């Protein structure tokens, strides 16, 4: 039974009634989010709203207390991260993703750890990413610590893509980047979705730029969903923007 969103697209990822937290703190309370296949869903809200917790629950870093996480009818709630990435969800965590002590190439190879394929296939896949991300190709044998902020973001996204996911969770990809680089990253996110049909769940503090690229948006506040609508509607709702999104 495939859950269908209003416009008839099937949902690649459905988070249903999720309750999760840390120790005695409940960070997510009955959260439901639908991510359309091939689209970009933005998860917005102030600090502490639960955005990162949501992604961590979906990717398995935290075990949810209640609720389902359906990936094409398959409930993956409570599985380990290693299993979930093999099921097809890749998570690019906030702020930490590059392993600076390893080279660019080694960082990328890690992305393929969930594969079963042989060397030729892996080498080909890596070349593909190098073609897509030229700066990484230039630095392939250098330590990842030598990359700039924007290049690091490219690296973690490339690595996540190498896991061949169906759903990509991006946590604050533009954090700490200069505005021009931020724009490039957003551009990249859009292209990933359009060109590859990747379903993207995008957590962003910068709600304005997120809504500019997203198809659909969900606003969280203190662990609950306070709004869920297509991006244009949310962007037009001035009261909502002022109250929860800061612009």
């Amino acid at each position, binding site marked *: 039974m495939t859950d269908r969103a209003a416009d008839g697209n099937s949902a690649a990822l459905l988070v249903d009634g999720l309750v999760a937290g840390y120790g005695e703190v409940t960070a997510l309370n009955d959260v439901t989010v639908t991510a359309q296949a091939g689209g970009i869903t933005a998860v917005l809200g102030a600090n502490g709203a639960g955005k*990162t917790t949501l992604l961590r629950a979906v990717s398995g870093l935290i075990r949810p207390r209640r609720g389902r996480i359906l990936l094409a009818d398959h409930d993956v709630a409570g599985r380990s991260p290693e299993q979930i990435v093999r099921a097809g969800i890749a998570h690019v965590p906030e702020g930490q993703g590059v392993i600076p002590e390893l080279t660019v190439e080694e960082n990328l190879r890690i992305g393929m750890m969930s594969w079963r394929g042989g060397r030729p296939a892996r080498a080909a896949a890596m070349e593909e990413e190098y073609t897509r991300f030229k700066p990484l190709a230039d630095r392939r044998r250098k330590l990842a610590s030598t990359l700039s902020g924007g290049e690091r973001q490219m690296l973690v996204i490339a690595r996540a893509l190498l896991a061949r996911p169906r759903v990509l969770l991006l946590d604050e990809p533009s954090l700490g980047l200069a505005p021009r680089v931020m724009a490039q990253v957003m551009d990249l996110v859009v292209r990933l979705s359009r060109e590859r049909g990747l379903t993207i769940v995008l957590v962003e503090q910068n709600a304005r730029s997120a809504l500019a690229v997203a198809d659909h948006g969900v606003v969280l506040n203190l662990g609950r969903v306070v709004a869920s609508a297509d991006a244009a509607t949310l962007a037009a709702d001035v009261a909502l923007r002022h109250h929860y999104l800061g612009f």
Partner: protein
Amino acid sequence: MRTLPRRLAVAVIVAVIVAFLSIKLNAFRDYQIAEIAIEVTAVAGLTMLTGLSGQISLGNGAFMAIGAYTTALLLMHLNWPFYLVLVIAAAVTAAAGAVVGIAAARLHGPYLAGATLLLGVALPSLALAYAGAFGGDQGLNVVFTVPAFLGVNFPLTRWQAWVSALVALIVLVLLANLDRSRIGRNWRAVRDNEVAATLDGINVAAARVRAFVVSAACAGLAGALLAIVTGLVAPGGFTLTLSIALLTAAVIGGLGSLPGALWGSLVIVLVPTYVTDVATSHGLSSTVGSNIPIVAYGVLLILVMLVFPNGIQGGLLRLVSAFLGPDPKSRIRRTAPAPHVTPSADEAPASQHEKEGTS
């Protein structure tokens, strides 16, 4: 301060009981009473150091050696009254504890464990290296006699038991006071979160050194008692095994708990001989018999850490509260160190239930 009279009353009662037992029981039991008292003195200091201030020491056997050798040398060369010698031994060891504490103030976790481990192994070898002064392998003999006023027929073992028990009780009362004082609270604060403690205005380094000083003084006293009870001070008596035994007793009894020090000491002193007797009476060789307690200690340490974090004392408190019901004024308090953030917490393997901030 209200509780001090109560503690003294308890101590006096225990002292009377011990005196009674020592008169009724035979010389071997007297010796065991002394052994237990010595162990309690040392373990109590260690359990405060590790349980309250969070600093692990695998070298308290070295402090016992310092106390023992100081005692032996003073008695041998100067023949001062033993109570004076005990105090001096404690003071000398306390000074050594200060030195170690200062050197160790910046060390944490495995680095601290390693340094104290090496201390425990290296210090006794001083006695071998300078055999002239310290008696080398054979060690130094200690002569300890019953004072005249007790009469000619008073058994030496009973006197040794009385002296040891008295010292142990005094130490326990003093430590109990420290535990409840500001110093004890500061130790717990430093153990739980050094950064928060600093922000609270606590001088973390001073608190840590103080803990080492106290623990060393206790170990030094225990070593001094060991000297006068066993009559011999030699490097072979202060091996790594001793330091590990102290830690084992502290953990099994309940880290950070003074009653726990007593339980742990009882186990460490009484169980081996009992088990060996049982084993040999069933036909097992004495080698096997003497190793069974060792295997048991290993298993106990593991079980306590994994399943019963507060050791025997924790188990007893839970039994008591099960009978009496939850009592808001009860003194059930956390005796095990709380989970604290180590400097390299961000390297720990991610668990399913990470405790990090929300976003």
